[in-house]
């Protein structure tokens, strides 16, 4: 996993609350057996019309969304299905961070496992970001701060271990494999 230290980008806002992973990537696209290429199906049913043409009024289809790496979503993003295809699709589309006031548990875990940064913000800052899309912000992992265009810095929570993994590009499987002796001891004791 590549290290994630700082993300400086414009934002795209999707104010809908409770965005479930079925919206992020509908089930009909889950039959793939690799992680690549889900970006074109990201938010497929919101993004394209019945003929498969992009809907011009959908946030991700607007010209200023091009190149934006930060998604600002309404409260409780990622509820529902455990499909890791959701963060894969967001990353493949170009997102490096997702901002909300609430993240569903499994989605948040899946994001962190892939280096897609979940940024949990207070309601006031979040509301401001939703109301002011397409502005450039800077997210710094080491200091766990988000910096607004006027220089205001806002802290966000990030567990120490997750932060360490992001900053160093460490993947957790390596860490688990290093616990082999402890696992073997547990197995012997619980045979």
């Amino acid at each position, binding site marked *: 996993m590549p290290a994630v230290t700082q993300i400086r980008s414009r934002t795209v806002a999707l104010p*809908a*609350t*409770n965005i*479930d992973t*079925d*919206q992020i990537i*509908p*089930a*009909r696209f*889950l*039959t*793939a*057996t*690799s*992680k690549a290429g889900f970006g074109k199906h990201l938010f497929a*049913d919101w993004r394209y019309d019945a003929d498969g043409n992009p809907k011009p009024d959908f946030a991700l289809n607007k010209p200023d969304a091009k190149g934006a790496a930060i998604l600002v979503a*309404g*409260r*409780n993003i990622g*509820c*529902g*299905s*455990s*499909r*890791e295809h959701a963060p894969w699709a967001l990353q493949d589309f170009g997102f490096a961070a997702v901002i909300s006031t*609430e*993240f*569903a*548990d*499994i989605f948040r*875990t*899946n994001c962190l*496992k*892939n280096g897609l940064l979940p940024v949990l913000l207070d309601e006031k800052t979040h509301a401001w970001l939703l109301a002011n899309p397409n502005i450039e912000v800077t997210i710094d992992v080491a200091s766990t701060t988000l910096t607004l265009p006027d220089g205001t810095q806002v802290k966000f929570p990030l*567990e*120490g*271990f997750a932060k*360490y993994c992001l900053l160093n590009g460490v993947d*957790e*499987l390596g*860490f*688990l*494999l290093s*616990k*082999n002796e*402890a*696992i073997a001891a*547990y*197995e012997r004791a*619980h045979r």
Partner: protein
Amino acid sequence: MFEKVWENHVVVPETADTPAVLFIDLHLTHEVTTPQAYTELRSRGLRLRRPDLTLATMDHSTPTRTEQVFGGVPIAVDSAAKQVQQLEINAQEFGVELFNLQDSRRGIVHIIGPELGLTQPGKTIVCGDSHTSTHGAFGALAFGIGTTEVGHVLATQCLLQRKPKTFAINVVNQLPAGVTAKDLILAIIGKIGVSGGTGYVLEYRGPAIEAMSMDERMTICNMSIEAGARAGMIAPDATTFEYLRNTPRAPKGADWDAAVARWSKLPTDPGAKFDREIDIDAATLVPMVTYGTHPGMVAPVTGHVPSSGDAVFEKALQYMGLAAGQIISEVPVQNVFVGSCTNGRLSDLRKAAGVLRGHKLAAGVKMLVVPGSQAVKRAAEAEGLDQVFKSAGAEWRESGCSMCLGMNGDLVPAGHYSVSTSNRNFEGRQGKGARTLLASPETAAASAIRGRVTDPREFV
């Protein structure tokens, strides 16, 4: 109870800097959320640590038409056929026991675990599927994981986890006649909201829960994730032990007695503190049905669509083609689905058939009945339930997830109302533009007869 199961599985305790290493007793797997995990293992030259604790089945993208399952007619969706083949290759290469498409033990992953007796009190159980919470009905700690974590468990039989908080749902009094476990869990989600359980393990307790069968308890725990909770648990008791006693993979003889003694110590100690608690009075409930695009948008079948000034709420009603104030029992129905890991067990089919017996589907209604497993299918056929469904005009299929998420091509047409016994009414869940109303098997069957959302108590 949660604390006891957690403590029993800690390999390395959590610290301020690192999460706990938690041992997993049972890893259930299926074709959709595993291929990329096996690719990862291959690329690192890793083997499966505990094939004896791993089981694979096919359920999500598999066909339900008999001729496609057994008759050699190819699976209609090419990529689904490839995914199914890939699971066969992976299971063979890594030495995983697999119930393939034609296996008589195959079924939805959360139906077959309990059926086989692999789901047991006190176990830690994971699967790359959010409805793994189902297995908590036995007093197991069971939760859904993503594909990266599937890889972790395949390679190490462990997961890195922070300890969640606990949330007691005290269900006082008993459910009135004609009100089901599905109605209760929908009411609970309506009360605490779709993110009310985030960060918690739920424990359902109280007289109404104790009176439930295992099938009903599974319906309850299954939908814990729809309240945002990764896991839901119910204390094991005589009902649990009776269910497991003669299952193929439950302990036998002296091992059984030892297991029951161990399991009997799992329930939460009197006076134990939960991080959060709420009370629900079962006696006040009526059959429930969802009207919106998440499971928390739920109302009594006897009620009307509520109103709200919220733009997201209005957008949901617009998608559903419903208006605030509309009487729920006047919503027309074109599609009915009975099945899924929520309500695809034998007792669910019995209840739907009980309402449907001697009736025909209303004109214009299409009904699909999909047993949760091949074992459920055989048992239902032995009782003649398939004949009840077929005589009414419904289709009777092979087992699988089917129309719950429509991955296999079993879809609800755009704009159609679908009364479904499944667990999610998200936009497009049952097909692009499909309008899903979640309900119990009884409500689904009653609605199929009338061609509109119907209170099943009219058929008692």
